[in-house]
């Protein structure tokens, strides 16, 4: 049985850990608020861009011609962009998205899957399992700029156009609320645009013309989708870490309570033993 001193030491150790988890929770809460703000500010841009592409595609009668719309006859290679965090200690946040990505690779066993990891966790996970890594994007510490998304977007757009990738899929955590992040998986390329709707304004004037506009708009749309997924993931990571640290703080509190009880029992037992010794000693002297 542990001595009172051992238990005391353990209580100190657990309460130190509790201090750390409590601080981490508060830091994550502050970071999350900021991340949500950034994420929400980016939403109108991607929504407007999607609207504009839809309108341009409707204008082209749903048959807008662009390399990004062309589905390959035979899909051999798929690029999978997996967005995770760089750091851990955020509960099941990373494992959920990695599990979904891994299941995706199992479902497409007959195809060559190449990974584009965004975040250290995704890189470590797939590199360890022997997947081919196209290019890794790690060490941003959750501070992504639009330029970072442009770099990833450029890589996958080029690979799709020059035939290195026949399809590009994106898997990330979507931020729903502080306690809920949903794993989203979507096909980035080839782009799917709803067809059949009529253009809203028949007498639209385009400068220079629809094809040139689509040439600039579509890569931008890919970049924006990646940027949005990065921001959603960052906000989700902080939310998940906040919840994980809150749970850890609570567990540490419970553990401390149990340890204190144990400590008191041990102390009580030691006092009783000591008293017995004294009484016995006194009896023996009689």
């Amino acid at each position, binding site marked *: 049985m542990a001595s009172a001193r051992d238990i005391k030491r353990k209580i100190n150790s657990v309460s130190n850990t509790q201090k750390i988890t409590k601080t981490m929770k508060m830091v994550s809460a502050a970071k999350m608020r900021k991340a949500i703000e*950034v994420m929400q*500010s*980016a939403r*109108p*841009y*991607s929504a*407007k*861009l999607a*609207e*504009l592409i839809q*309108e*341009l595609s409707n204008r082209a009668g749903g048959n807008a011609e662009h390399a990004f719309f062309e589905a390959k006859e035979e899909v051999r290679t798929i690029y999978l962009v997996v967005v995770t965090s760089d750091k851990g200690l955020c509960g099941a946040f990373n494992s959920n998205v990695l599990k979904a990505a891994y299941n995706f690779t199992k479902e497409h066993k007959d195809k060559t899957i190449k990974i584009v990891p965004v975040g250290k966790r995704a890189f470590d996970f797939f590199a360890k399992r022997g997947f081919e890594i196209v290019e890794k994007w790690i060490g941003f510490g959750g501070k992504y700029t*639009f330029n970072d*998304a*442009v770099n990833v977007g*450029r890589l996958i757009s*080029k690979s799709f156009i020059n035939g290195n990738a026949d399809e590009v899929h994106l898997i990330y955590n979507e931020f729903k609320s502080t306690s809920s992040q949903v794993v989203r998986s979507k096909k980035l390329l080839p782009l799917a645009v709803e067809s059949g709707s009529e253009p*809203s*304004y028949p*007498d*639209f*004037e*385009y*400068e*220079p013309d629809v094809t*040139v*506009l689509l040439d*600039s*708009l579509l890569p*931008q749309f890919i970049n*924006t989708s990646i*940027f949005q997924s990065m921001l959603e993931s960052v906000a989700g990571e902080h939310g998940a870490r906040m919840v994980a640290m809150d749970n850890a703080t609570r567990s540490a509190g419970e553990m401390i309570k149990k340890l204190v009880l144990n400590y008191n029992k041990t102390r009580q037992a030691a006092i009783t033993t000591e008293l017995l010794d004294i009484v016995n000693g006194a009896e023996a002297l009689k």
Partner: protein
Amino acid sequence: MADKLFLELVSPEKLLVSSDVDNVFAMGAGGAFGLYPDHSPFCTELVPCVLTYAIGQETFKVIVSKGFLEVADNKVNVLAERAVYVKDIDAAKIKAEYDALSAELAGEIADEEIRKEKETALKFCETALNI
């Protein structure tokens, strides 16, 4: 007949403007243009420029890099890859960025797309510094 345009200017980082305005001026692929209420539906690619809009007697200036502008039904949507109000420009930061970009562009850049992007960024800085 409408007497206002509803302008929404968004960049990937934030929503900069969302309000009724009297007019909008900017520079597109085909040159400078102005928009007033009841403009015919129109969509253009933007080049780095100073976009101005007026609300009553007050005029606002925003530096935008490449992007898109669409007007229809008295609503103007501007999607700019980068946008900053002239009053918010940090001249020292922009100058440092301009110098770094100039140095990079003076050297070899193998990828044509990267070169174009850097040139656009340089134009954005130039526009911001010249205002």
